[in-house]
């Protein structure tokens, strides 16, 4: 990622040395997030939207909704599609073109957190079983990339959902044979939150900044719900975790999930 090899070795040494002294290079505690801010309803053309900053990482999520057929094997629930775009605006390392493996992983992990966390009551997005359901697109646009996209994207997507309105009245003309009702708030069911940790040498850090990601050995993202239940996990990078480390991370993820959820609830 961070280009030049010499630069990246110097960076690694610097981070290693700091950690040996028990410090992160930006002065944070190991279990401390950067400043997290959430602003909802920032895009009027979207049914719901949120812009999330985690430090300098800047992410914009928007919800669009339309009406269509359900999948044959799930006739009574709406359809949800999550897509994250690592647009080249956000980083010199992101390229134009079809989504690469990193974008696809990000999209799928964000999707899994929301889906398995039952963020939305998808049955309430069924209009007529087997015939017509709401189709929901969650699009996450990465605007400025300074590490920890997983948490920023998941948080922005959750906030956008929580602030969204299902635009039923707009579609009344198009579907005269169905009772779509009035516009209604997105039927939120749960607030799963993703929290990501990396391992650098033997140290576990939450919310890695880009420089930390660059030298990290292993990464684990854990999505938890308000009751502290685990809803999704994704390990990344080519290092390994011990079982004890994973237990430790899962426990901390619940704590951190609660902290971020508080910030989210205040933004709504």
């Amino acid at each position, binding site marked *: 990622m961070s280009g030049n090899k010499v630069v990246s070795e110097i960076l690694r040494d610097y981070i290693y040395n700091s950690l040996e002294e028990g410090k992160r290079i930006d002065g944070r505690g190991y279990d401390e997030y950067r400043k997290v801010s959430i602003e909802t309803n920032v895009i009027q053309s979207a049914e719901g939207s949120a812009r999330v900053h985690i430090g300098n990482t800047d992410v914009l999520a928007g919800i669009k909704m339309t009406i269509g057929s359900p999948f044959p094997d799930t006739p009574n629930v709406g359809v949800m599609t999550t897509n994250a775009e690592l647009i080249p*605006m956000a980083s*010199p390392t992101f390229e134009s073109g079809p989504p690469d493996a990193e974008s696809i992983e990000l999209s799928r992990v964000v999707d899994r957190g929301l889906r398995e966390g039952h963020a939305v009551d998808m049955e309430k997005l069924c209009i007529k079983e087997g015939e017509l359901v709401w189709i929901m697109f969650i699009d996450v646009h990465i605007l400025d990339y300074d590490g920890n996209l997983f948490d920023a994207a998941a948080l922005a997507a959750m906030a956008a959902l929580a602030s969204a309105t299902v635009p039923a009245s707009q579609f009344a003309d198009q579907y005269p044979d169905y009772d779509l009702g009035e516009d209604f708030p997105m039927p939120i069911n749960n607030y799963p939150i993703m929290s990501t940790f990396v391992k650098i040498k033997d140290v576990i850090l939450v919310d890695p900044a880009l420089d930390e990601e660059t030298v990290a050995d292993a990464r684990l993202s854990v999505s938890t719900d308000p009751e502290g239940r685990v809803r999704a996990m994704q390990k990344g990078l080519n290092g390994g975790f011990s079982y004890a480390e994973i237990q430790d991370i899962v426990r901390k993820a619940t704590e951190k999930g609660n902290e971020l959820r508080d910030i989210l609830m205040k933004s709504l």
Partner: protein
Amino acid sequence: MGMKMDIELIDKNGLRIDGRKPEELRPIKIEAGVLKRADGSAYVEWGKNKILAAVYGPREAHPRHLQKSNKAIVQVRYNMAPFSVGDRKRPGPDRRSVEISKITSEALEHVVMTELFPRSSIDVFIEVLQANAGTRCAGLTAASVALADAGIPMKDLVVGVASGKVDDVVVLDLGKEEDNYGQADVPMGYIPRTGEIVLLQMDGDMTQEELFKAMEMSMDAAKYIYGLQKEALRKRYEMIAREETEEIEGVQ
């Protein structure tokens, strides 16, 4: 242009559907230096349009066969966020985006001193976060500011602004309904200081005189927008200077 509809775009007082006078712009807000990672950036709100522009470079042009031995190339990627429009836009470039990227690139190449950076690419990314008619002009306006914010040597700033015709009246800066149901749209890229027109398109139906009147309206308005661009950059430089002063003071 020209979807038919029983919609009155100019009222009996000569005012437009959003209350503007024919020669009146929508409100415009420009901010420079809004992103950390990019070498330069700008944010433009123009009516209900919300547009970000970022610049990276000069950097090595790749793939290599794009490199020019005697100058830099300016590569523009105009992109609409999926949620920026009424019906979700599928991610990835469509034919409209490719055309807009191309003409925006040509307009910017005119002002960037490309000869200073052989074999390089100056990459401009325009992201339309919310679209409401006139995004190519707003994007061009934003891109100019982002290039200047990136410290790219330029002959001048380019201003993007459109004019057109609705209900047989020549008007400045078409809004969404005017764009859909009006009679003509003329987007322009203009350099107020030199009077050069570096981007120009038109579609619809206009007499020569109407076209010329529209262009004159745009050229007038461009001077005002040019002021906003410079003001945004001035604020940005002040902020940088202030930050640097604070840093020096912090050290002392």
